[in-house]
């Protein structure tokens, strides 16, 4: 149906104008496949417009409140002046990782380093640089992994992305050192940053990736990221996402993972702060023996909003999946959890688990949780469940009766609640870093850019009480 009379909102108008004006510029250096993909995505976007909370999959996420803001969709590249560590320091530190970064939607590196092969065989760099170097990989995987569950905003990132990260782990390469991607947003205007990433793991390969969305300034923004992940036969990825952004910024992370035979994905999304954050995790289990272990933790307050959309497609027999998302919402924070397990007719011997637990600390906090199973095979083992509750009064009294003050008892219980998820983080140094951040967040001490050299003028809230949660 042609919507010639479609009325576009302010953001839609500026995105359309931007694409039409910059079409040639966007397509410079891009292969015909990418040029075509941009055009198709743009057409799709013009047809559907941006999603709103009246769409079933966006119910209770008032994304449209962003649409009358004036976001600047064009972000000229910043020349490389300082090393990334001079601009920012990510919260997660002291753990041994190879660091790459994006600045305002552009791959940020010294001249000539747009694409590098590291010692251990890992290829990392800018997606634009990579598509020239690896046309056959782009033919095979670019735009091929994300098939369903796309929408107006994924169309925008696909049409308008300036740059993004390309990661390629060749067959048989097991990357020992973790890779850390730090996304920096630092401009004086309100920006919409559209980027897209392509991550390819060859057969029998292995990678740990930490994706940090925590280095942004205090301006409102809209970060829209589209990521495709290919896991070849017996490949294994650990993907950690850390989200700690200001209360005026919206973040959409749309991640599509395609898994071949015996591949394993382990995802842990840690959301500590942000105005509106939506994580879309779509996993297609296309080869027998594939396993997806998807976890998330969210700690929201103020008027923050978190939306986790998890979709696992069991397309073939003998695959396993697990979804565990837990969250604490305080004050007027709101949240959505939408968990879907789809088991195709032939996908016998599927084992799928899903759980979402929430703690609401105030009567004005809200969560809308919808665990959902759609099963067409008959020999499967699936379970799902969701809870919404308060902290256990019995447990609180028990702790207080041992002399632990009320506020510390609260903290201890909330921290314990999150431990089930953080306990699954396999890299010890990363886990203790994240656990420390969660403690700080629960104490109200975590400044958004606490460690950031650029924006550290925000005072750290003084420590009001001490709780001994160290390991003995």
């Amino acid at each position: 149906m042609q919507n010639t009379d479609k009325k576009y909102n302010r953001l839609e108008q500026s995105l359309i104008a931007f694409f039409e004006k910059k079409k040639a510029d966007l397509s410079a250096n891009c292969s015909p496949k990418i040029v075509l993909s941009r055009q198709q995505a743009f057409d799709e976007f013009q047809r559907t417009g941006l999603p709103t909370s009246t769409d079933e999959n966006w119910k209770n996420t008032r994304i449209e409140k962003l649409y009358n803001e004036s976001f600047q969709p064009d972000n000229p590249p910043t020349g490389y002046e300082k090393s990334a560590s001079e601009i920012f320091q990510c919260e997660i530190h002291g753990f041994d990782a190879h660091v790459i970064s994006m600045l305002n939607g552009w791959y940020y590196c010294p001249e000539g380093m747009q694409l590098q092969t590291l010692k251990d065989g890992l290829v990392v760099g800018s997606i634009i640089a990579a598509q020239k170097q690896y046309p056959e990989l782009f033919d095979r995987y670019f735009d091929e992994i994300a098939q369903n569950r796309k929408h107006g905003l994924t169309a925008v990132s696909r049409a308008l992305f300036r740059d993004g990260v390309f990661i390629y782990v060749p067959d048989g390469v097991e990357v020992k050192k973790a890779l850390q991607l730090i996304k920096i947003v630092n401009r004086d205007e309100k920006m919409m940053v559209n980027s897209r990433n392509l991550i390819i793991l060859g057969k029998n390969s292995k990678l740990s990736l930490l994706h940090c969305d925590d280095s942004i300034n205090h301006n409102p923004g809209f970060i829209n990221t589209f990521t495709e992940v290919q896991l070849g036969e017996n490949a294994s990825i650990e993907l950690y996402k850390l989200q700690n952004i200001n209360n005026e910024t919206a973040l959409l992370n749309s991640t599509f993972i395609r898994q071949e035979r015996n591949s394993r994905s382990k995802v842990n999304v840690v959301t500590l702060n942000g105005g509106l954050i939506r994580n879309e995790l779509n996993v297609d289990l296309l080869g027998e023996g594939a396993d997806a272990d998807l976890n998330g933790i969210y700690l929201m307050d103020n008027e923050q909003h978190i939306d986790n959309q998890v979709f696992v497609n069991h397309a073939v027999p003998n695959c396993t999946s697990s979804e565990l998302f837990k969250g604490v919402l305080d004050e007027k924070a709101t949240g959505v959890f939408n968990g879907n397990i789809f088991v195709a007719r032939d996908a016998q011997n599927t084992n799928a688990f899903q759980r979402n637990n929430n703690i609401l600390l105030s009567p004005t906090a809200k969560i809308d949780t919808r665990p959902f199973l759609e099963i067409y095979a008959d020999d499967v083992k699936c379970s799902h469940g969701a809870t919404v509750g308060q902290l256990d009064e019995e447990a609180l009294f028990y702790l207080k009766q041992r002399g632990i003050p009320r506020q510390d008892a609260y903290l201890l219980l909330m921290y314990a609640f999150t431990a089930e998820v953080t306990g699954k983080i396999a890299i010890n140094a990363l886990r203790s870093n994240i656990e420390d951040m969660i403690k700080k967040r629960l104490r109200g001490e975590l400044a958004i850019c606490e460690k950031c050299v650029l924006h550290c003028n925000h005072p750290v809230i003084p420590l009001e009480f001490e709780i001994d949660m160290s390991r003995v």
Partner: protein
Amino acid sequence: MLLNIKNLHVSINGKEILKGLNLGVNKGEVHAIMGPNGTGKSTLAAAITGREGYEITKGEIIYKGKNIKDLSPDVRANEGIFLSFQYPVEIPGVSMTNFMRTALNAQREYRKLPPMPAAGFLKKMEEKKQLVEIHARMTNRSVNEGFSGGEKKKNEIFQMAMLEPQLAILDETDSGLDIDALQVVAKGVNALRSPDNGFVVITHYQRLLEYIVPDFVHVMYDGRIVKSGGKGLAFELEEKGYDWIKKTA
């Protein structure tokens, strides 16, 4: 006097449960509180420890010379009041070690003492674990999670040993225990008895009192203490049953 309860009236949701209870406990004494179910024994424990929802409508609880009515449960605990719970709570995600260290250091902080160094803390844990025959694996697990009934009760006594309270209230610590566990629990309690602390042992059965020998036995009925005596009263009760009390009350 360590604890002096005078004419205590306590209501839950407007329903009066304790109806003028009097009890005095001196340092060095063990008082047993017996009585049929539903006479307010656990309500007494809840009122002393400051549990929410238990409203003192009349009378007072004087502990170490002060009315504790307005003190929060944690402050009462820090002042040395300990409750061995009838139903210890499971707290997934909080390890026993972490829990105990947090509690101990909270109490030390209240008393203006520096936190206990890790080595000293671990040594103390080991010592007290042996006292109640707790196996090492128990302290590495989450608080009470997956513990058997007996383990949970032993764990309460272990915590008591760690925190060294001045007033310990044992609420039906014997319920659900086999004779071996009962002996271990009693041994733990007896080891902690001293001229400086007092115990209130709430029990339905006389059995526990064979192992923890009380100085005084009180019988509760319908929200009051209706009879008090020496340890012989417990045996008398065992023989005659609670109907005897009900008739005389």
